[in-house]
């Protein structure tokens, strides 16, 4: 093969993926490791990569202790109830106590944060959200990372982590290829921080054809964080906890600013409020502890995001769709109208494009909402990801093995979507987690834990062969048929993706089955998934760009397999509205008030599943506050 091998050796901290988590890691690594070599490997261009590529209109995680607004434990209460109890409270508390310092830095760097002209405090969208002009959010944090890293490799798709050969279960770097030159890149590193983002397009999207990439979470979020970690043998947690979002129809424009700031509401086709109708039935499923509308009214406790989805879905299934967002009232105020539009222009331009194309002006017409296909991610209103150590001053022994945000593989850290059990971190929290991981990684090296790492040429060469195999496969078999994409000896990445999405949708609870699954379906799905994996061995890539799609697909499939395993393990419906186990419809605290933890044996591919204790930090009750809806 004509591609060069480029080796970067003696790296101290390798950051894989430089979205919000990765940029935070690179930035902070420079402070704690002024003598250390920090390198970034990023699939796209760090200036516009990741979920925040087009910008954001709000920072969704800010305590405001500076203004006396919230304390970290308040945030723990909030995220815990939203996730029906299933969170890592040590990690949440830790993120929350640092997140304000991150946001204050952002402002100092020039990110335009809106302020309340009377109090001088940041303009709140909701209890946890502050409003920004965030079109250039990503270029701004990218500048911080660029000023910190020794080298930034853009356009490197990281495919595998390298493992140390002198000590079992220790990381030693990563490999990948440049999606432009095709060159093979080897990064030998003492520690690795994986911040390669969440997973979209694992389930069949609602859009079809040309619009197939019009999903809510970016189509380039390929679950690499999970694929890399699982393949390296890292333990994962809460992978069953996929998220479904209520969004503006087709454009997937977020609803948060509309509910929280513009104070809009939803109604069914008859113009009626419908959510509360479903609460009694839902209370029977989940128990009053989790759904007590009276308490929600009196205090800050939101009705969990998934339960509000449940009401939405049931109302539509009862024949009273579509659900509309009532914008016509708020949009009569020119200021609010501007906020409504700019919210999308700075974050989800596709929604504005759609409204322009369909002549929908929300001032004169209430737009339709929909529920999205499920996504797998760790930093939004859901908490999939790696099982990581917490900080030493907070975590109980089961949650602590020495270095903050280190996975169960030594020297391997996570941030943002990669870390499990830490929902509601969002952009600012992901950046903060990157900072925490970087400090811990420096400490790990300084403690001598990374001494004596060894990577043999045979490991490096084996990975190289594996990476380029789809190109080889194409070369050998493409002559078998005249032209086109039908070949008896291979499938291309798009065909593989279509198959993955179809089977996840039908067997693991996607949109076409109204998010419903059961043990039988899951087992059939898993079986089909294993056959798909056999076919992935025969994946063919025509060029380097297709090779990128091939590896994205492989990471997606690994993530999806983990979702299957976890969904099978948790025998209850913990999050109605995200998915349903038809054979165990009720939430079952007696048996399942536990976090789920899995490990895939890298040698055999076998999964081991276990329950881990779910610790609580703060009591549920606190002083009454403004009623609030959860942001999702």
């Amino acid at each position: 093969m004509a591609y060069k091998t480029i080796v970067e050796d003696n790296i101290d901290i390798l950051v894989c993926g430089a979205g919000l988590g990765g940029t935070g890691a690179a930035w902070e690594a420079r402070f704690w490791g002024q003598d250390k070599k920090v390198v970034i490997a990023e699939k796209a261009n760090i200036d516009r990569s990741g979920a925040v590529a087009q910008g954001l209109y709000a920072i969704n995680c800010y305590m405001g202790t500076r203004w006396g607004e919230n304390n970290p434990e308040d945030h723990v209460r909030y995220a815990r109830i939203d996730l029906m109890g299933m969170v890592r409270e040590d990690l949440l508390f830790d993120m929350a106590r640092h997140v304000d310092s991150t946001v204050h830095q952002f402002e100092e760097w020039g990110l335009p944060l809106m302020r309340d002209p009377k109090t001088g405090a940041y303009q709140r969208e909701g209890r946890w959200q502050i409003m920004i002009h965030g079109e250039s959010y990503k270029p701004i944090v990218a500048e911080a990372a660029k000023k910190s890293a020794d080298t930034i490799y853009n356009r490197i798709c990281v495919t595998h982590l390298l493992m140390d050969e002198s000590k079992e279960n220790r990381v030693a770097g990563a490999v990948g290829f440049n999606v432009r030159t095709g060159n093979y890149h080897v990064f030998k590193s003492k520690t690795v921080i994986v911040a390669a983002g969440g997973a979209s397009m694992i389930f069949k999207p609602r859009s079809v054809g040309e619009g197939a990439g019009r999903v809510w979470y970016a189509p380039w979020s390929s679950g690499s964080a999970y694929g890399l970690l699982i393949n390296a043998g890292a333990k994962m947690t809460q992978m069953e906890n996929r998220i479904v979002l209520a969004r503006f129809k087709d454009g997937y424009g977020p609803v948060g600013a509309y509910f929280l700031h513009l104070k809009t509401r939803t109604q069914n086709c008859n113009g009626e409020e419908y959510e509360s109708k479903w609460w009694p039935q839902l209370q029977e499923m989940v128990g009053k502890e989790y759904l007590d509308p009276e308490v929600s009214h009196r205090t800050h406790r939101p009705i969990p995001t998934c339960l509000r989805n449940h009401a939405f879905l049931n109302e539509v299934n009862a024949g009273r769709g579509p659900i509309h967002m009532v914008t016509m009232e708020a949009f009569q105020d020119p200021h609010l109208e501007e906020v409504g539009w700019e919210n999308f222009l700075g974050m989800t331009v596709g929604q504005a494009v759609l409204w322009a194309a369909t002549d929908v002006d929300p001032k004169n017409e209430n737009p339709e909402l929909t529920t999205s296909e499920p996504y797998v991610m760790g930093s939004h209103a859901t908490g999939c990801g790696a099982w990581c150590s917490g900080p030493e001053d907070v975590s109980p022994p089961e949650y602590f093995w020495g270095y903050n945000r280190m996975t169960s593989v030594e020297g391997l850290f996570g941030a943002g979507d990669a870390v499990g059990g830490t929902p509601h971190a969002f952009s600012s929290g992901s950046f903060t987690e990157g900072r925490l991981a970087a400090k811990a990684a420096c400490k790990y090296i300084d403690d001598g834990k990374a001494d004596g790492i060894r990577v043999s040429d045979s490991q490096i060469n084996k990975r190289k062969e594996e990476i380029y195999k789809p190109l080889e496969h194409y070369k050998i078999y493409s002559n078998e048929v005249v032209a086109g994409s039908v070949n008896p000896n291979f499938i291309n990445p798009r065909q593989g993706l279509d198959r993955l999405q179809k089977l996840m949708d039908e067997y693991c609870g996607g949109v076409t089955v109204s998010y419903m699954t059961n043990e039988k379906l899951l087992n059939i799905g898993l079986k089909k998934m294993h056959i798909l994996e056999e076919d992935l061995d025969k994946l063919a890539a025509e060029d380097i760009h297709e090779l990128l799609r091939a590896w994205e697909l492989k990471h997606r499939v690994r993530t999806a397999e983990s979702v299957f395993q976890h969904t099978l393990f948790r025998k209850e419906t913990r999050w109605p509205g995200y998915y349903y186990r038809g054979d165990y419809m009720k939430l079952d605290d007696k048996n399942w008030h536990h976090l789920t933890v899995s490990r895939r044996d890298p040698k055999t591919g076998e999964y081991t599943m276990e329950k881990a204790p779910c610790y609580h930090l703060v009591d549920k009750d606190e002083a009454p506050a403004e009623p609030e809806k959860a942001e999702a």
Partner: protein
Amino acid sequence: MPTFVYMTRCDGCGYCVDICPSDIMHIDETTRRAYNIEPNMCWECFSCVKACPHHAIDVRGYADFAPLGHSVRVDRDEERGTIAWKIKFRDGREKEFLSPITTKPWGKHIPQLADVPAPDKSMRDSQLLFNEPKYIRMDEGDLHTLEAAGLKLKEGVYY
């Protein structure tokens, strides 16, 4: 689609190729002009549109749900620190918006952490990050700990 390139305006500079997070803006080898090689992996994120120095890239909504005849144009100006949008509905109505992208000139206000004084041992042993505790409350107040807040982690179900 959804992004497409006006042939006559594009000079093949490659800025869009450089920025597209989805790796789908490519230069056609024959015409030396850019084009979107995989419309169904486009997010309409407008990163390429904002990056094009010749306003040669445009977006047309996805064919599976968006009718023809609309446009959303953008002009991002780093020098002035603003972004301007012009939305044209299918029926001809127009809306314009202007907002800031930064409050400070680019490239100068983020410090080089390699140049700041290195952290001492007590900072390393604490839970603090760079600029903390000051940057949390913007005063000398301390970091939250469980003890200080009178909290303890405890296993179990209580709601």
